[in-house]
């Protein structure tokens, strides 16, 4: 594989008496979907915030396309080409889709908003993502949860990022809407973007992720190629040891099966 787009090594972050991250490594290559897994409090969100510049790391190095960089503010991350889509979607309900897509980066013509150019670009962008929304001039309040998520993701693409981080994009979505978002994630990968996907939903992870990076109690707990790794092994890494209710149950089931045969 060529040089990874983003490479974190030895990242540590401490909040007061809590060591949220210690010595965490993570690499993301172009055209790769990396699922960031871990139980609640494992440090996933902290790691995302470190990458996004919301919480600068205390120690460790971040390499961007092989070059060492410092990310101390959200603007730094954006300038590098890292887009973050947080769980609570940041859309303005009273603005239409075009207005939301271009919020803060509006195009102007002779000092006035260039609605035509913005709508054209928006239609092109959504077309290229194979997103079908009947009219781009309806307020986003009228969109479904999946459509809103897709608009939020599409908006981040206007900045031409190289890495997109999604924080639980399919939480609270229905079956069809989840499929839409997963389709979109695959299209991001096809465009050659690196995607970091935080999810608790193993089905989603198995559907789209190439690799699963597992965090446990603020440390790396394994990095698995998703297609070749059994579900149980990833769960075991998330939950910690073999000595846990999940593993015990599976063991029981396995013995029961062999006993039955």
């Amino acid at each position, binding site marked *: 594989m060529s040089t990874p787009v983003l490479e974190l090594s030895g990242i540590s972050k401490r909040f007061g008496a809590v060591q949220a991250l210690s010595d965490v490594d993570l690499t993301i290559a172009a055209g790769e979907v990396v699922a960031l897994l871990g139980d609640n409090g494992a440090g996933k969100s902290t790691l995302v915030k470190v990458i996004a510049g919301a919480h600068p790391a205390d120690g460790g190095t971040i390499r961007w396309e092989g070059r060492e960089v410092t990310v101390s503010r959200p603007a730094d991350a954006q300038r590098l080409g890292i887009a973050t889509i947080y769980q609570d979607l*940041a859309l303005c309900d009273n603005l239409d889709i075009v207005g939301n897509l271009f919020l803060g980066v509006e195009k102007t013509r002779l000092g006035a908003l260039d609605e035509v150019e913005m709508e054209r670009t928006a*239609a092109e962008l959504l077309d290229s993502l194979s997103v079908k929304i009947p*009219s781009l001039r309806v307020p986003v309040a*009228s969109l479904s949860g999946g459509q809103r998520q897709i608009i939020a993701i599409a908006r981040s693409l206007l900045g031409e990022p190289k890495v997109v981080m999604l924080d639980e994009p399919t939480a609270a979505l229905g079956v069809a809407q989840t499929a839409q978002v997963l389709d979109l994630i695959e299209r991001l990968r096809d465009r050659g973007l690196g995607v970091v996907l935080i999810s608790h939903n193993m089905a989603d992870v198995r559907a789209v992720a190439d690799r699963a990076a597992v965090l446990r109690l603020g440390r790396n707990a394994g990095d698995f190629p998703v297609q070749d790794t059994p579900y149980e092994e990833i769960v075991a890494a998330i939950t910690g040891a073999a000595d846990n209710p999940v593993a015990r149950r599976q063991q029981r089931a396995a013995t029961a099966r062999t006993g039955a045969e």
Partner: protein
Amino acid sequence: MAAQQAPAAGEEQRPAPARPDPRLIVTRTTPAGLAQAGLRRLRGGELGPVPVIVALILICAVFQTMHERFLSPQNLSNLTVQVAAVGLMTTGVIMVLLLGEIDLSIGSVAGASAAITAVLAVRYGLPEWAAIAAAVGAGLAIGLVHGTIFAKVGVPAFVVTLAGLLGWQGLQLQLLGDDGTINISDSGAIAALTQTYFVPWMGWLIGGGAVLLYAVLTFTGERRRAAAGLATARPPAEVALRTLLLAVPVFGGVAVLNQFKGVPLAFLIFVGFVVAFDLMLRKTRYGRMVFAVGGGAEAARRAGINVDLIRISVFGLASMLAAIGGVVLVSRSFSASLDTAAGEELMMAIAAAVIGGTSLFGGRGNAYSALLGGLVLGAITSGLYLLQMGTPVRYMITAVVLLIAVVLDAFSRRSRRTHARG
């Protein structure tokens, strides 16, 4: 896995950007289609200016049947001058309402501005234009202070401007001192604001120019839209209809006003500010940011918008417009007194904004609310005055109209929700 396919394959399968989407109902090309689309929007709770225009026509009809001079050119001309001052204040209130906030100080700021104008022009002998500029500048500064305390310190706007309501009225009383009233020259620049009327041909020129400008800009805009292949482009028939709907009141208004003294400058100033603020709100990045902050401050902040700056500037603009309203009040009564803008002006300005269709819930509304709402309240005042009914009746009627407007706002909000239109 589906995603394993080469990106190029995806590119080829994708059809050329051929819109419109089949699910989008397009029924706009024929007159019947236009009417149908309009009806659908009304049912969906997008009432727009329809209720307030209906109310205005209704009020005019009622008063005309009760008093034959209500729709006379003289009365209508006076009405347009009367609504200008509070109308300017309303325009400022609308900006603040769009943020989802409230400004209770605009009446006091208008009063303080009136006092500053009169004191500088009369007691200190400054040129009248300089006195006006100083008052407007003071208004802007006052608003920036309110906005800064609200945005940076985090005191609720309600409380900040409540303090302003008291404080700036205090300044007004302090400046005017013991005599309480300062009379201004009836031939200076201040008086000219409300005493100037345009000769008929100038009225026609202004009205015609405005309509022509609207038609040309809308037509070329929609042409560009259609050329870009956008489904939302309006057909020429709709542009023509919209131009007609604008031309009828404009030319009708000019014709009526010309029968008395001509188009009054004060009304033109008011309408000019309304149009300018409407364009600013709808066509500029700044306006888009105001709507964004009103619709979701957190989303706006994440999009890189300087929310504090927007809030401070909006309060600054609102107080500046209130100060201009104060100057117009001085102009109309040739004096600044202890009760200039100290009474109902604040309540009427907020009521006019809501009656005109600007939502109290933030993020929804437009500058034209000031014009329409102001005309409704002005018509009620003027009609009751002709019928020789006093303030008590007027307050009660205004209250009912205001209540109807708020109920309508709440209903249309609910209707928009159920029709999935935000």
